[in-house]
């Protein structure tokens, strides 16, 4: 299988001021992993374990302190932003709270249109096509974020992410704010899109049921480290690390 991402010894430290002293916290500590093209890689762990930081460092929304990020044999760890821009459109991110990640003053159609290149007409047609693809009607092109429901907003965030024809999407807890029925619809949409565009996902979630349902391989994070990595079923049926075991047992 083709390796899409290769991460070597990735480290990120944060400085936290606590009362009178400064503490350094390892958000990421020597993270090593590979993500193959076309797979869904699930990342689980408690809040504060570094899942989100990993997703953001991987696509260089946050600069790493140490280590290497290799995207398709190209080392992008220290690549200047100007050159990186060429690759940026290949990777996208979808956040947990779509209300915070969409600009409240821009109609949703225009948000989606932003990432598309071409003439004005092409842009407009492509963005309507994307809205249809995620299940939104053309009439809602000029509606603002507050006029949509939570599930619909997440659909817009997905359409916006797809607007640059990415091959890789970081999905950072995309369904944890949604009702069960809407969660099902959004998961279905992720699966449909994955198959249609042969997408690769880094799927971050603390919901083990979703993790097991959607991912091919999973990594378990604990305090900035990946404690276990492997095929989903193997980890769920035979967890090796005591933390993984505890996590799986705690599921209700």
């Amino acid at each position, binding site marked *: 299988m083709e390796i899409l991402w290769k991460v070597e010894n990735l480290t990120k430290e944060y400085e936290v001021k606590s009362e009178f002293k400064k503490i350094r916290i390892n958000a990421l500590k020597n993270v090593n992993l590979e993500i193959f093209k076309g797979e869904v890689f699930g990342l689980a762990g408690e809040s504060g374990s570094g899942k989100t930081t990993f997703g953001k460092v991987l696509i260089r929304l946050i600069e790493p302190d140490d280590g290497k990020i290799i995207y398709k044999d190209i080392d992008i760890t220290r690549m200047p932003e100007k050159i990186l821009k060429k690759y940026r459109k290949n990777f996208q991110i979808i956040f947990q709270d779509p209300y915070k990640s969409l600009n409240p003053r821009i109609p949703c159609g225009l948000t989606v249109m932003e990432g598309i290149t071409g003439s004005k007409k092409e842009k407009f047609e492509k963005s309507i096509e994307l809205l249809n693809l995620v299940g939104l009607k053309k009439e809602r092109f000029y509606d603002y974020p507050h006029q949509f429901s939570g599930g619909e907003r997440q659909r817009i965030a997905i359409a916006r992410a797809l607007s640059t024809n990415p091959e890789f999407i970081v999905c950072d807890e995309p369904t944890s704010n949604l009702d069960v029925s809407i969660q099902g619809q959004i998961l279905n949409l992720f699966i449909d899109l994955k198959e249609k565009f042969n997408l690769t996902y880094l799927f971050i979630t603390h919901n083990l*049921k979703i993790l097991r349902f959607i991912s091919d391989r999973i990594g378990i994070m604990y305090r900035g480290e990946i404690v276990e990595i492997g095929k989903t079923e193997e980890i769920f049926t035979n967890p090796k690390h005591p933390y993984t075991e505890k996590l799986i047992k705690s599921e209700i």
Partner: protein
Amino acid sequence: MFLTQKTGKMEKILTVKNIFVGNEEIKILRNINFEVRKKEIVSIVGESGCGKSMTLRAIIKLLPKNLKILNGEIFFENLKITEYNEMEKIRGKRIGMIFQEPSSYLNPLFTIGNQIEEGIKENIGKKEKKEKIVKILKEIGLSPDVYYSYPHQLSGGMQQRAMIAMALINNPDLLLADEPTTALDVTTASGIIKLLKDLVSIYNLSIIFVTHDISLAKYISDKIIVMYAGIIVEKGNSEQVYNNPLHPYTQKLINCLPEKYSKRERIKTIEGEVPSFKNLPYGCPFSTRCEYKKRICEEKIPGEIVIENRIVRCFKYGNIVES
């Protein structure tokens, strides 16, 4: 009447009878009927906007200003809450409440000990108060040092435990829990859930647990009440409701759970959305999304039908119309 096999737990602590909540324009809750017995955990399940939290608010009479109880009765033991005007004697003392986001209910400027102390209604000295608080902190799984901690020094799970300590400090008979674990992690959440289950026997407590997660409801509770658009569509023994749901809505809700499917199979979701309270369908509120819809469903609201020890409101099981 609602039947339960669990004898010995028969003493009723709360009775909600034909409650309607709303105003001249809209009706939020329509004909809500249920009972909570001593040491029983009852879950209320449904999507957002189905009236779960509003039911809890009606019980402690903390409804939003524009809404009121239009009809019906609520009894707390033998006290008629609906006609009782000194609710402050009951709230916090006999009925405790915990919420989804503990951080927004804790005062950032006071220590946890201070905030718990404030709630003590008993007339006792400062030293006894402190002893009482330290005792409850231990029971709830927190270190006694938390007495001197400020909310920001605690994690989400610890904050929720502190909230539980606050709710239980006066030994209430009933705890209302409004999605207390939704904002928490799996491991922390399961800790809280297990704690709540243990507290039932330690404190002789009954709990009404509101959640949108029906599998969690099955795990924690004795009875499940499924609500949709302000009415109770199904209620019964947890195992029965979860393993053999009768109402089409309950069936579909359970069918939405990813754990019911093999890897990346398409999830059978519920088409459409919950109707808004301003735009309720004339007949059965679920008729707009129901595959078994008949003509009568659009014309009349189904009444309560007793099947297999539980109550369902659906014309699929007989033409009983809501009076």
